[in-house]
């Protein structure tokens, strides 16, 4: 009988140490501003625009703002989006 002992090579993630819950949800999207966040990868913008249209048709007084970001996304654009919107849909094209 032989027992081999080895050390675990996997590092702990910062995200395992500091865990956040998701934001509290509104009961409806009526009257809210919806941000569409895109990283400029082809196709994502088409899905986002369509989603914005469909949600605007379903809920009252929804304002939609599209943010065309990049990879990596400009931090100022992200900050502006946070200030201007209540909820977000994001797409990276994949």
């Amino acid at each position, binding site marked *: 009988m032989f027992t081999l002992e080895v050390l675990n090579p996997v590092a702990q993630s910062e995200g395992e140490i500091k865990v956040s819950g998701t934001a509290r949800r509104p009961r409806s999207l009526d009257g809210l501003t919806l941000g569409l966040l895109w990283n400029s990868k082809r196709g994502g913008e088409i899905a986002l625009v369509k*989603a914005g249209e469909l949600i605007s048709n379903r809920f009252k007084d929804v304002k939609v703002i599209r943010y065309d970001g990049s990879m990596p996304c400009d931090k100022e654009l992200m900050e502006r989006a946070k200030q201007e919107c209540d909820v977000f849909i994001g797409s990276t094209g994949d």
Partner: protein
Amino acid sequence: MEKAGKPSVGIVSVGFERDAMATARAFGLPQFRYALFPEVLTGLTPERIKRDTADAVDRMVEVLTTDAGGNGNTTAAKPKATDRLKIDATDSYDAFEKMNRQFLELEWSDGFPIIPATPEKVERMLKGATRSAEDVVTVLEPGNGLATVEKIAINAVMAGCEPAHLPILIAACEAYTGLGDRVRAMAMSTSTHAPLMVINGPIGREIGINSKRCAMGPGAQSRHNIVLGRALRLIMMNVGHCYPGHMDLDTIGTARKFGMCVAENEEETPWQPLHVEKGFDQEESTVTLFATRDEIDVNDLDNWTPEGVLNSMAFFSAIPGGEYLDQGHPGWDPYYRLLLMFGPEHANICGTAGWSKNAVREYVYNRCRTSARRLLNKVLCTPDKIRPQWEWLLKLSEWEQDQIMLPVMGSASNIEMVVVGGPAGKNLIYRCIAPPSTAIIKDRA
């Protein structure tokens, strides 16, 4: 956005679900939710994307309007100590095989047999550097893993490294983080992006890192190069959590991902070595990381003039890129680099004729061109994406587009150069997706 209190939903395509959740966990958001699309959007017609979106909109609304059980609060835990795994077997050979099978099942291996990281071997590895085992060198993206000296050492043992290699790997982790906001593109892309380590300074000669014949290839002469490159890949996986299919979404993959490490041939270069050019002292040892996207062999055995040799480099490099034409990726162009890896023979043809590195850069940049027609293929399906100043190109006939030669990259300063290899008129070209990142190798025991 969730951390800022803003409910969010991501559009995630089939095949990318594990990546999305691994990324969410890396940022401490395990309750992240998404709307699943049946196909990757990039290759679909607009009509198909709109249809998929209509099918997914109910889920988007559900995610945005129903709580996942969280309250937005953040909780903190203490880092845990490294645990040990025990493998019972009939003998040591059986244990070696069992451990390798287990590590493959856990996805902790690169696929080749790994050396068991026993406590004794790790202890010995740690003696190669002056830093404490628990020191956090950096946080490695994309998984935001805490790169302690101990975790780097464990993966170094698994790769077959020696203690003298540990300070190089510590510096490589620092250089990896130094790639900044391009790290994620290198690690996670659907393209064949892979890091290349270039070692400069005395450490390469002291340890015996190959800078000459077949330095990028297999064999005993490159044994240090091989295990160092391999260790960085294992560190990317096990410390950076960049596992294929989870956070490494490479479509086809490449053998370059198993590891690339080389020393610059400073004895035979006619120019300043890379690290001196970057502002480091000749006697300092450094590791420079290049985020490569591909590799091209430049075979020119027929020219013996700088112009002839450099024309080959320029013409072989003239692969349509031309992201500067496309407003869809405004942030990309400044990042791109072309790494010219000269064999010493061609480097010296240029150097002895008085060509400086900058003269080589300017010459290659000015001849590294391709036709407007080839560059415009990028916007063939999406002509609305072209930047306004280039719209006039779209009005030309294909024949006219063929006559206009444009640079494939933005600037001569985007060209990097190193000298590697043995005698013969061969060179390599690496297209890169980021400016290189250099770190000093210190902490040597």
